[in-house]
């Protein structure tokens, strides 16, 4: 169990399972998580199932395992998001979307689904793989991806940002602000906190 976050905007992820109220299911895989995926695929939901796989290891393993669902395999996250979008364009009410992977990828995918009018009642998210954070610089509004430390240099303005637990679902990112604005140079030690 994860402790309740100190800032309530931070997402909390529960073990993912099929939503039995759906009649079509779309599983978006951005990181391999054998335990989770094998459990899900061993117990498939009623109705059609489509997989969009952006994680090479997962694609290979699922292929070898002979998973019979319709499977779209993409080489990277960007092309996987495009594949997801073209599937959602054709999709109809009754679909459930499952997003499995690092926060950066699954929240970008959730943003695509939101554009197609899906509500949170139709989407389930599960964080797995790297805990690295996408960070939105509140000063210059640049996004810095793959942040594993409490402090990070902004990819836009170069300031040293402190990564807060405040999370925007619309941006799919955590907030970063300059750590030493009050007293220049006064910074805590850098630690890896998002492995």
């Amino acid at each position, binding site marked *: 169990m994860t402790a309740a976050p100190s800032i309530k*905007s931070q997402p909390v992820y529960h073990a993912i399972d099929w939503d039995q109220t759906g009649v079509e299911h779309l599983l978006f895989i951005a990181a391999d998580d054998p335990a989770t995926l094998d459990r899900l695929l061993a117990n498939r939901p009623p109705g059609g199932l489509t997989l969009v796989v952006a994680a090479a290891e997962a694609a290979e393993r699922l292929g070898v395992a002979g998973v019979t669902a319709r499977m779209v395999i993409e080489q990277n996250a960007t092309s996987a998001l495009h594949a997801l979008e073209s599937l959602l364009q054709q999709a109809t009410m009754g679909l459930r979307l499952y997003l499995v992977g690092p926060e950066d990828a699954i929240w970008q995918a959730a943003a695509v689904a939101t554009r197609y009018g899906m509500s949170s009642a139709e989407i389930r998210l599960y964080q797995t793989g790297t805990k690295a954070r996408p960070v939105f610089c509140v000063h210059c509004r640049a996004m810095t991806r793959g942040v594993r430390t409490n402090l990070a240099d902004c990819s836009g303005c170069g300031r040293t940002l402190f990564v807060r637990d*405040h999370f925007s679902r619309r941006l799919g990112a955590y907030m970063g602000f*300059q750590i030493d604005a009050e007293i220049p140079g006064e910074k805590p030690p850098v630690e890896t906190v998002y492995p």
Partner: protein
Amino acid sequence: MGIAFRDETFRDTFTYRNSDEGIRRFPFPFGLDQYMYSVNIEPHTAGKPDSVYQYAFDIDEHYIAECRDRAITLEKDPGRCISLPHMMDSEWDVLELIMTSLSRDYPEHFALHRDGEQWTWTNRPLGIEQAFVFGNAQTLPYPPFEYITRQTQGDFVIMDHRDGDLWADAGMITSQADWSLAFDVGMSFKEWHGPVPRAHEIGVFDRALKYLLMLQLGNPVRRLNWTMTVNPRLDTAPETYPDWGPDRTSVTLDNVAEKVHLRVELQALFRLPRSNGILFSIRCYMASVGDLARYPKWARRLHRVLRDLPQDLAEYKGLVRYKPAVVEWLSRLDDGVPVPPGTDPE
């Protein structure tokens, strides 16, 4: 008799001051010696004449200077005004609400002439006369929400009401207590208030949300919130934290009375007719600790509240570096006699 507007600044030279009348009508938020969160919501009905509660949108001696400061902030950062695409009906709702309120309550300063959809708006303090077609955004120099909130004191958020929640989907935010519209826009009620400590645990936001979802047309409500600011600076956004953060280290016992300001937000909530959304207005008042302390009741009470403020609230409000100086300075004015409940200055 109109309002005598002051020529003053909220940055660089910081010439902002309150008149004696401005201090007397200051919405001092502490009715008791201890501060804690509560759902302190009451009807936003007409209050006493010459109080900040007299009208729906309070206009005071700082009006022209505040509009000027907002324009400077927007020039540097247009991202302080954001409205998501589905919010256009609520934008017109807000324009109508503010124009009809100001022209009714301050006829010497504002006028609105309506002939069907043909409207003419007159804003004498800012020297504006604008004819436009209500409902046609092309006939205004800015989108309707930005247009009218550039001419109104205070920050504004419009919340969309859907799925049993309120979503912060539009805002004009240039005088905020350290939160970022660009980051928070689109958040649900509880996500948006996510960083506030303690209040979630005691159910404040559950109750507030339940209450606001029932908010009725024609029955606005209000509450007060507060923080402190070093120098009378309106724009204390996270965006410009590198500009104002260092001010927090500049407070000494010698300058605390002039430099440190109590910052009170008169927050009001209005159900909007066309969109079924809710307008959240956040009207900011600032008064220096020295000015407030001219009323012995306020000096004693402010001292006791700050002295006993829990550390996590002090951190959240950004007071930690300079609170000791404020408390020490105020302690000299607090002889310990009991202060009767209530927020009035005398």
